[in-house]
């Protein structure tokens, strides 16, 4: 079952990319060229605003933005418990 954070992020990204309804949590956003600079900054702003965490420059890395699943894992690791 998809986690709530993952589901929310999936909807966010799906609404902003072409053919978004086919997007899966593990879809490789880089391989499929679905991310552009504006969308990345939208994602950063969305994550910071919604989840109350601050992403640093070094967080904008392929390892974190490769898929919704990866980004969701980053958020979970950073959120206060």
């Amino acid at each position: 079952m998809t986690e709530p954070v993952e589901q929310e992020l999936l909807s966010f990204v799906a609404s902003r990319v072409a053919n978004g309804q086919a997007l899966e949590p593990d879809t490789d956003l880089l391989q499929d060229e679905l991310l552009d600079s504006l969308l990345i900054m939208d994602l950063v702003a969305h994550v910071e605003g919604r989840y109350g965490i601050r992403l640093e420059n070094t967080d904008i890395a392929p390892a974190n933005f490769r898929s919704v699943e990866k980004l969701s894992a980053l958020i979970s690791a950073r959120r206060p418990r």
Partner: protein
Amino acid sequence: MERPLVEPPVPDEAIPTWNMNYLYGCPTPADPTIVWGTDVDCTDLQNYLRHLNAESAVLITPVHVLLRATACAMARHPQFNRRVLRRRIYQYKQVNLLLPFRKRQPAETDVMVLEQVDRKPLVEIARELWQHHQDAARGEFVYDRQRSLGLSRRMTRRLFYRMHLWLANGVNLPAREHSKRHRTAAATVNYFGFKGAAPLRSFKPSRAPYDGVPVNVTMGGIEPRPVALNGEVVVRSIAPLFVRADHRIVDAHDIGLFVATLREFIGNPAAMEFGGSASVGGESALAAATAREPAGHRPR
């Protein structure tokens, strides 16, 4: 000798009103702007980015490659790194670029200055850009609007802009932080590959009121298009590319060669990084993208 024109001239009564506006409202149409448009095959660029992003600690996009390619092309063709000041041509000391970008709050375009881009590896360019973007998203970016809105009266604002332009276009003053965008970069770089944008087929970059940025490099979104390759029609990833330059500084021959260099660097970024070698990927691509002195900036 016969005069080539009919006397008397066409009377005003015979000229439509809208044409009259231009006739009496515009200066003589001497326009030193040249625009050269072409297509770039970005298939290898996309492969290169896939390899790079598989290893890199920072996310690298086509914008970063476009910036570096422009800077390396300007280093190879230094006559493009010049400006006109009081009807004389001056060389810039370093290859700096301007990058307009879209901010969300407030929703408007701002411009960032990137310095010595030909000397920076791709990874460093990417880091710098992400930092600027994040600063802008958090409202930490200083921009002219704050300055101009600080001048509350319209007349004061107009005088401020006129004086600012007069200084930028006529005086070789040292550039302070707020005037760097008018005085330190010869080129503006646009990337219009954002989602939702219509496919770009033709583009005429505007010319800023300040004279210090005579070159504009604009690339549109990368899209699959049919092309003829080795006698076969195949689908490749193609992007349109437009370069605007100033005929007071360079001519069409120079622009043709500059665009060819740019096309070569964008189309094969590995060659740009390795100074002409064939396409590479994985660790070697990353090594090049993080190298302090990549080969591409060296003038030929």
